[in-house]
Structures are given as C-alpha cells and as structure tokens.
C-alpha cells in the first residue's frame, strides 16, 4: 500500500526535478522546484516524518522559494537565459567529467546491488510527529539546537553587512 503511493510520488518528484534542470526560463525552473518540494514532502509523509513534511512546505516551498524568485528578478536575465553558452574547452572537460561520474556511479550501483539490505525497522506511528521530534530536540540534541541559533545570528549579520545599501 505504501509502495503504491511511494512510486507515483517519487516519479512525480524526479520528473519535476528534471523539469528544474531542463526548463528554459529561470521562473519555470523555480516553479518546478516548488512543485518538487511538495512531492518531497509527500515522500516524507510516506516515511512517517510528518513534522519534516510540514517544515518542507513552510521553509522550502514557502520561504526559500520566495528568495529564489527575488534573486531571479534581481538578476533579471533577459533572453540571455535562453541558451547556455558552452565554451569549447569546457565542453570537452564536462564530457570527460560526466563520463567519469557515470563510471563511478555504475561501479557504485554494481556494488550496492550485491549487498543485502536488512528488513527495514518497524517504525512506530508516532515516529516523526512533532512530539517525537520535539522530545529529541530538547533533550538529546539540545546543544545543536542552541548552536543553530548562533548560526542563524551569524547569517543575519552577514545578510545585513552584504545587502544593506548604505553601510557606513
């Protein structure tokens, strides 16, 4: 039953991810990205991570996409975005790198196919609920939680230093 939901969702997400890469206009890419985030959040739900699924929508599909849109508007690519200019020298390098990455991936998949994966652990229904996440956040992971606030503070300072138009 879960697989029946998972596969269409995963296919939808991968398709939209491809849409992000192959879309011609940056706005189109961004919109595909939003939809992809929704797909991802669906996958989180299938994986019992409810709280994460909601965060995915609030933070990524909401806040971060707004920022993406602003940056796209700010850069204001007019027409230049229609075709990626590929320099010849870089083309050969890219092809070489691509082939190498493909080989490495092939080797990896080849190896992984031989491994036996254990039966997935049984996850209780309350596994990814807000209560469960909160409990571990405020007890076991209290240090990362407080350190994260320092990170946010540093990011705030950085944003103001770099983007405030008149700093003197």
């Amino acid at each position, binding site marked *: 039953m879960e697989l029946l939901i998972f596969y269409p969702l995963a296919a939808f997400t991968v398709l939209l991810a491809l849409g992000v890469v192959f879309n011609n206009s940056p706005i189109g890419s961004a919109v595909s990205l939003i939809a992809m985030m929704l797909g991802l959040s669906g996958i989180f739900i299938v994986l019992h991570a409810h709280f994460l699924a909601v965060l995915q929508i609030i933070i990524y599909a909401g806040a971060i996409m707004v920022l993406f849109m602003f940056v796209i508007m700010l850069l204001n690519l007019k027409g230049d975005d229609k075709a990626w200019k590929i320099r010849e020298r870089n083309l050969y390098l890219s092809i070489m790198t691509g082939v190498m990455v493909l080989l490495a991936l092939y080797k990896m998949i080849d190896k992984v196919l031989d491994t036996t*994966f*254990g039966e997935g652990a049984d996850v209780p229904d309350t596994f990814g609920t807000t209560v469960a996440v909160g409990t571990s956040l405020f007890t076991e992971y209290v240090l990362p939680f407080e350190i994260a606030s320092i990170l946010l503070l540093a*990011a705030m300072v*950085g944003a103001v230093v770099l983007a405030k138009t008149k*700093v003197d």
Partner: protein
Amino acid sequence: MEPITAPIIDFTSLAPVLVLSVFAMMVLLVDLFIGRNKSVLVFISLVGLLCAAVSAFAKGTEIPVSSFNGAYIVDRLSIFFTMIFCMSSALAILLAVEYNKREGIRVGEYYSLILFCTVGMIVLASATDLIMIFLGIEIVSICLYVLAGIRRTDPKSNEAALKYFLLGAFATGFLLYGMTLLYGTTGSVKLATIAQLLNSGEVLAQPLMLLGVVLLVIGFGFKVAAVPFHMWAPDVYQGAPTPVTAFMAVGPKAAAFAAFYRLFAEGIPELAPTWQMTLSIVAVFSMFFGNLGAIMQTNIKRLLAFSSVSHVGYILIAVIAKDTLGSASLMFYMLSYAFMIFGIFGIIIILGRKGHENLELEHYSGLGFKHPLLALCMTMFMLSLGGMPPLAGFVAKFYIFQAALNEGFLWLVIIAVLNSAISFYYYLKVIVFMYMKEPIGEFKISLTPITLFVVAVGIIGTLELGIFPGPIIFLAQY
C-alpha cells in the same frame, strides 16, 4: 502527560563556546552605539578571545570528557586547537586594525564575525557528532563568505565572496550527503557509536557507506582546499582583504582539519585502508599541483594560496597517519603554520599603502637594501614555509613524516620530501627578488606598530618552535 526529564548540560565543557558567544554578541551590540572609532571593539574582542582561551582549561586535568550524549568532547586535540583558534583570531584582529583604517573598511561587524567564526571553529574541533560538525562548518563558512566580501566597493572582493560562497555551498551539499549516507547505514550520528558498529561488523550496505566516505572526502577537500577541489583558493585569497586571507589560511583551515581528523581517525578507523588510499592520492595531487601552480605566480597572495594548497597536502599526511603521533603532528603543524602565515601577511600589509597594496613580486625587489630587517623576517618565513632547519616549518614537517613512517607510508614521505625541494624554487624566488633586484620606484611602506607586533609574534613563534620545539610537542602529545 508524564514530564520529560531534563538533559544534563555540562557548562564547564562548553565554557569557551559560551564565553566567546557572549563576547561576540557584546561586540555586535556595542558596535551599534559607538561612532566611527572601533578601537573599543578591538579591545572587547581581544579580551573575549583571551577569556575563551583561559576557559578552555576549565575541565582541569580530568580530560578527555565527553558530554551531551557523546556530541561534544574536551580532550587534548580540542584544547590545543582552541588555543590555535584564539591566537589566530586575535592576530587576525590585530592585523586588521591598521589595515582597515588605511583601506577605509569601517565595518564594525568585522570583529563580531571573526568571533562568531571562532565559535564555529571551537565547535568544529570539539564535535564528535555529525550534526555538530555540520553546524560548526556552516558557522565558519558563513562568516568567511561575508568576511571575504566585506570590502563591498571592491569588485575583486565581491568576486572572492561570490566564488567562495557558490563553491562552498556546493561542497556543503556533498558533505551533508556523505553524512546522510553514514547515518543511513549506521543509524547513528555519534562518531563513537559509528566506530563501534563498524568494529563489530554490524553495518549493512557497506558500499553505501563507502560512497558516503567518498562524499565526505570531497566535502572536506573543498573546505581545506585540497586538489582537485582547490580551484577557489587562489581567487578567494587574492580578492579577500589581506587580514581575512591570513585568517582564512590558518584558523578555519585548522578547524576543518581537526574535524577531518576526528571524523576519519575516530569515527571510521575501521575503513582506514580505503580512505587512506583516497586521501593519499588527494595529498599527492595537492602537493604537486600546489607547488607547480605556485611556481607560475607573480602575485604574492596567489603564490601563497597555491603554497597553502601544497601545505594541505603535507597536513593530509598527518590525517592519513591517524594514530597519536598523527594528531600531535597535525596540531604542531597548524600552530607553526599559523605563526608563519600571520608573519608573512603582516609584512605584506606593511608593504602596501592606501590604494596601492603592492602585491606583485616585483614590488618586493630591492627590499633587502631599503628595509633589511623586514626582508630578513620575510626570508625567514619563506625558508620556514619551505622547511629549512632550524625553523618551525622544518620541525613540523619532520614530525609529520615521522608519523607517516610509523604507519608505513614511506612512499608518501618520499614524495613529500621531493615536493619540499620543489617548493624552495618559488620561496627562494621571493628572496631573490628582495636581495638581488634593483628596486622599482620608491618604497612607501606603512610601518605601523600593531602590524609590526604581529610580525614580531610570527618571528618569535617561528624561531621558538624551530629551536625549542620540545615543550609544545610535549603538550601536543601528552
């Protein structure tokens, strides 16, 4: 609704982080209410760094102590590195005092960002948990992106910030993916648990784990600028304001190496045969490409960037050697490297003046006749970087090679020695310029006391560690 029991919070372990965070916020807020004179910020920052350095010993002699469910550790490595961080941040602040005044960088956030960065570095050196390592790396990186671009009107500085940010963010992605795979195959983010599971052979899907390790190598490789992930280093080093470049080359790099060492030598030592091979290749490439790249440079900051890439190669050997001697040699190397780099950048700052930074090698021609003392200092730093006895660089390299030999990496040592020989070519080139070429134009240098003080600290450190390395080696090892 049964209550949840409170976690045990070990404040003494956390002391340096707490102290420094408080001081950083203080600097941030004080800056809002003072005028254009930022000297009081310098003072608060230095006091904060001193307090943090002292509070690192809050645990006394009962180390190593693990706290927060094995997420944070106070041990020899973390205390020693905390000392290096506090010192390098203090020197970076001192270097910036006169430089910022000269170049008209009137941004008080400079000081608070350096302090926040130091908080991140201490977290990084003490973290024994993937989440903490990630948070530490992010704090350090975000502060550095901003610091690199803090000279907002200078296109070079903007370029540096943007390049560093894009590549750094990309590298963070790799790092995070690697951590995810490690977590996915072991079910734990604690290094100790991961090591234990690996040891008892309970890890399913080893290939996935290996893929995770490879991604971690890529991520850390970017952060420490090892070949082939070093492309950002020359541009960023060149474009960032000089004190920031010096800071970047020492503190954050040392922090990344501390986490690198901890993750690989303490988290996944069972997989050593695999990652030792990978890292050896990265180390050899770093040494060769760093040195070859440096030979062709005419800009001193770019030259030092490539030279630091080759030094990353040597330091990686310490990570590969991974036993006690490996960590001790890593600490010693980073300390001596800090002295050398801050000394050199101090001289670079002195040689510049407002609007003319004089960064080309030809600007150094004839320095030996006009300012013999400065030239002598520069010569000593250059020789020390190359590894000439009896200077710090020699002892540091010697120590790393010894660690590698103990683990049976003779071939790696031979390559490293060969590379040291190559590196003398460009270090000597600087010296040749200073002593054997006629000066082009007049020297108008800015001999300012605080910057001179930093150079003096560098010289004293380089000589001390070269001639009497005993006490520091003892501290590092026991």
